[in-house]
């Protein structure tokens, strides 16, 4: 059975001494991909930069770790108690784990690093041991017996280290007999760390930028206009057709909210070009918004409801201001989770909210469409209606596989049927290209492996973690690349795209191997008469 540890674990070389500026390289492919033997502490030194006081204060978080440990301790325990009262998931998950071990071989970070604290149950246990000590009777009476621990500086450091080695991908929750979702525990941990003044620089700085400038990348309005004009020129040059990429157009039918990486990063921008061509070909008026120029919502990664809501409300404001009839979300995994599953709760985009703005929005939005819709839902609907034409042979140089992004796969849906989030993107690819191959069944659809860069770890100082976390996914890609000559991995997530673009070369592939589904659409779509 799959229980015997396989000897060939990836070498922990890079993790052991990151301080010495070790040469960063991808872990070796394993001869027999299986469950690695434990290497305790192999990732103990992998930590993201800590947010400075300015970043923390901008979000209303405690500025820094207090010199008096007792203060930090009390802040953390107080926040933990608050969250336990606010979230049934956290409370039930803290109580329910029986240490059965079903999740121990499911996390890509564990498979890639062999650090036992990256086993989902062990990661949860970092918090559960503190929960037991402060919130349960046996933990107060017999801490050693039940594995309860005082919250010490060392414990909190361990939290910071290992709760920032979770990409909140939920693969463990799929396999847990009680549905315990480490992502929920990780989010709570991040929130507690923020409250204690121990925030993560990358995520918190980005959230600050969203509030200050409007998007994660800090692109101000004029830069957006510039970029979009450039895109229009490029598309005109390529196709001879005037495809528009409008910004802040009042009265447009569709507001497209997309990750800001789509505006300038490769290969993201190729998908943005694709969205515009779809709207153009279908004759749908659309607009981007400078206010809501970011679909991503890092409030989720730091487990902060208030931030999650504040960031999401920009979309509602933009929709009301622009008077649009539909809200459509671009290719971004966690953004789609937030939009699909949380927007209705946070902002009343959807049905059922009763505050004045939500009611106004409900009157304004067209009930004949899903609100919000994913761009893939929109494109697939148009394909089914026969409103888009494709020259599939334009993609003949590509042999394509599809990487399911975790937040789309395990935390959202497309279309009306469960599993639409798997079928619709694949249907689109098959409609626009001739050569499509699936990766191994245990690595696709809801069983998909994270790219290794989600959940707020897409930062350079965590490159070692990102490379190792990508190993299970890369092994599946290698298999189809070797066997079927796959040369294009399609995906619908900005973080996945950025992560793959960075790590593919380490694994010996071209960065251009990763791209968007609408990049494929863009290649094959027939725009009608040239002007």
């Amino acid at each position, binding site marked *: 059975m799959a229980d015997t540890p396989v000897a060939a674990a990836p070498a922990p070389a890079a993790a052991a001494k990151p301080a010495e500026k070790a040469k960063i390289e991808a872990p070796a492919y394993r001869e027999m991909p299986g469950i690695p033997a434990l290497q305790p502490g192999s990732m103990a030194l992998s930590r993201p930069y800590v947010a400075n006081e300015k970043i923390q204060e901008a979000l209303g978080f405690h500025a820094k770790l207090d010199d008096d440990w007792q203060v930090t301790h009390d802040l953390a325990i107080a926040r933990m108690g608050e969250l336990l009262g606010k*979230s049934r998931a956290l409370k039930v998950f803290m109580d329910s784990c029986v240490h059965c071990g079903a999740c121990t071989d499911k996390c890509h970070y564990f498979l890639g690093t062999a650090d036992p604290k990256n086993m989902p149950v062990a990661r949860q246990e970092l918090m559960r041991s503190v929960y037991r000590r402060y919130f349960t009777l*046996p933990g107060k009476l017999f801490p050693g017996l039940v594995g309860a621990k005082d919250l010490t500086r060392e414990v909190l450091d361990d939290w910071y280290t290992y709760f920032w080695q979770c990409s909140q991908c939920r693969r463990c929750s799929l396999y847990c007999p009680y549905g315990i979702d480490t992502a929920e525990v990780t989010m709570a941990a991040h929130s507690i760390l923020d409250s204690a003044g121990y925030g993560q620089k990358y995520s918190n700085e980005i959230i600050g930028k969203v509030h200050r400038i409007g998007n994660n990348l800090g692109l101000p309005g004029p830069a957006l206009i510039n970029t979009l004009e450039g895109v229009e020129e490029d598309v005109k040059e390529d196709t001879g057709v005037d495809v528009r990429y409008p910004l802040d157009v009042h009265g447009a039918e569709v507001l497209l909210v997309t990750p800001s990486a789509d505006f300038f990063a490769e290969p993201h921008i190729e998908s943005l070009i694709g969205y515009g061509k779809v709207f153009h070909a279908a004759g749908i008026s659309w607009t981007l918004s400078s206010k809501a120029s970011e679909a991503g919502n890092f409030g989720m990664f730091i487990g902060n409801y208030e931030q999650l809501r504040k960031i999401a409300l920009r979309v509602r404001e933009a929709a009301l201001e622009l008077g649009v009839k539909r809200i459509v979300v671009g290719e971004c995994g966690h953004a789609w989770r937030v939009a699909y599953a949380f927007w209705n709760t946070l902002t009343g985009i959807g049905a059922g909210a009763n505050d004045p703005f939500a009611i106004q929005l409900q009157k304004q939005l067209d009930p004949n469409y899903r609100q919000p819709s994913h761009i893939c839902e929109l494109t697939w609907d148009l394909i089914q209606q026969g409103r888009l034409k494709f020259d599939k042979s334009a993609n003949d140089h590509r042999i394509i596989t599809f990487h399911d992004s975790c937040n789309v796969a395990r935390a959202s849906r497309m279309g009306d049927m469960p599993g639409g989030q798997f079928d619709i993107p694949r249907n689109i690819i098959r409609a626009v290209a001739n050569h499509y191959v699936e990766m191994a069944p245990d690595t696709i659809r809801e069983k998909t492996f994270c790219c290794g860069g989600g959940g707020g770890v897409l930062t350079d100082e965590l490159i070692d973690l990102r490379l190792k976390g990508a190993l299970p996914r890369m092994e599946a890609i290698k298999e189809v690349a070797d066997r079927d000559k796959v040369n294009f991995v399609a995906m619908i997530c900005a973080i996945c795209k950025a992560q793959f673009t960075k790590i593919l070369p380490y694994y010996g592939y071209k960065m251009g191997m990763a791209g968007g589904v609408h990049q494929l659409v863009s290649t094959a779509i027939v725009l009608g008469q040239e002007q």
Partner: protein
Amino acid sequence: MNLLFAILFYAATLVLVGGVAYRIYDYARTPAPLSIPTTPAPTTGSGVALRLFREVVFFESLFKSNLWIWALGWLFHVGLALVLLRHLRYFTEPVNFVIAFIQPFGMYAGFAMAAGLAGLWARRFLVERIRYISTPSDHLMLALLLGIAATGLLMKFVMHTDIVAVKMFFLGLMSFEVNPLPAHPGLYLHLLMVALLMIIFPVSKLLHAPGVFFSPTRNQVDNPRETRRLAPWAAALERKA
């Protein structure tokens, strides 16, 4: 001794029922602020009921996860369920025909239960990853359950006790009378461990039993675009904003 056991079982029952009731109340009153079913998830209430049924009866997620843990865990739980049902004959007179019918199965279910427990315990020693995550209480819990199973089987197959008297004792307790319990070391041990299990149930990982029904990733309907979910504290936040 009779009185001691009587008091013990009244106390244990009180702790078990009161404790679990409080936990259920606590889970029920704590809001689930966001829609977080692990997808693909059912889009209707009846679909969710079916999903929970499959989880509780067949351990569906565990089956997809790890066949060894599933097989051993399922063997233990089904064995335990049959054994518990079988024990109802000590608490009812006349005995329901269903309970009478399952008596022979329940007898052998004791072995299944013990075998499952032994296998699960073996994993805690043999599999490195499981050894790493096991706490002393995980081992003690298995020891306790296995002890209960072993003493039970011992009384059934090796050192019989006067089960008519045992039944009179428990029927008596149910009408607040204390009848004599057979003086049998195996029985004393068996009952002592059962009472201990009942007492620790509401403060231990045994809470996975009620917990599975309250797990938002399993019990939520996947319909966030159609139905708005709003926790009372989140609604208060909106009013404040």
